[in-house]
């Protein structure tokens, strides 16, 4: 099974192989489409997870992204950067979901941490600190969150982030810096409350 997956992943490596897979998928070859999907599914799911904050919504977003990909294979085939297209659609679907659900959590709603020692920063387990940092994403605006996730977690350059989000590089820089400071402030305040 693992060998089969590896073989499938290798099958779409390189632009030519990917173009062939997309062309086959356009001709209603679902197996070819599954091969394309396997290459990008983790990227789409984790990006959606950081943007919407929970796995169930992230799965719904991923599903919608790949259904849109299938419906737009013609356009995507012409566009050289499939990855950028997928990021853009993922972010847009997350925006739509966010408008419906309003996911941001005010500081007052964050649950009190469990005191485990004298120095809260030191005593907090790694898992808890990671959880708090993830929680801090929910205090950001949708645009700040998207810019931060694409730049700091997905590793896109500010220029690529600007292209995905349809903004200027200056705007993206401003959003990223504000998001980093807000995230750090949230973590600081969270652990200070434990003292």
């Amino acid at each position, binding site marked *: 099974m693992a060998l089969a997956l590896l073989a499938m992943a290798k099958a779409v490596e390189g632009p030519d192989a990917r173009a062939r897979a997309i062309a086959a998928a356009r001709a*209603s070859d*679902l197996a070819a*489409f*599954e091969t394309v*999907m*396997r290459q990008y*599914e*983790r990227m789409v*799911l*984790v990006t959606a*997870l*950081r943007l919407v904050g929970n*796995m169930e919504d992230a*799965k719904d977003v*991923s*599903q919608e992204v*790949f*259904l849109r990909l*299938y419906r737009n294979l013609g356009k995507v085939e012409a566009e050289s950067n499939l990855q950028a297209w997928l990021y853009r659609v993922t972010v847009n679907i997350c925006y739509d979901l966010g408008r419906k659900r309003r996911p941001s959590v005010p500081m007052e709603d964050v649950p009190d941490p469990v005191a485990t020692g004298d120095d809260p920063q030191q005593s907090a387990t*790694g898992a808890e*600190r*990671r*959880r708090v*940092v*993830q929680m*801090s*994403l929910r205090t950001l605006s949708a645009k700040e969150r998207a810019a931060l996730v694409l*730049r*700091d*977690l997905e590793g896109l350059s*500010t220029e690529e982030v600007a292209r995905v989000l349809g903004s200027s590089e200056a705007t993206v*820089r*401003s959003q*990223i*810096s*504000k998001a*980093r*400071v807000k*995230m*750090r402030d949230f*973590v*600081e305040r969270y652990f200070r409350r434990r003292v």
Partner: protein
Amino acid sequence: MNCNAWEERIALYAGGDLAPAEAPAVERHVAECAGCQLLLSGLRESMGLLREAHADPVEEAHLAAVRARVLSELERGANRRWRLGWVYAMAVAAMVLLMAVWPRSSKRVAVTVPPAPVVAVAQVPRAEPLLPAVRHRHRPRKVVVKAEKPAEPLVVKLLTDDPNVIIYWITDSKGE
């Protein structure tokens, strides 16, 4: 020292997003300012924690669930299109069949239409209120008189606009 002005640049510096020309100034300021050193270390720590969390492996079950949902939706769509294709094909076939049969049936209808009976028919307009003399001639629109035999009485059937009123006029050959 007011460090708010440095906050944005330090945040960009922490992620390597500051223009190279601006970096030395930030480094000099951070070296002199304890508050900004804390800010920079806090930024780096929170960014590092977030990256660690992001790098956690995603359970294959989640990926498989999404894949299964997408493929099942696409298969359902393909089946719907296939069924719809059949419906269109049947509709086209039915239309072709109808067009092939249509000319023959229309001929048959033409043949079976009975010939119009030869009847003495006169149509009289329905009685109307008095109108000016010029328009009040009461002349039948169509009067067809056919005498079957000159010696026998003449029967004239007058049809009015009202289908319930038919006037029969029986007279002798002199018209009395």
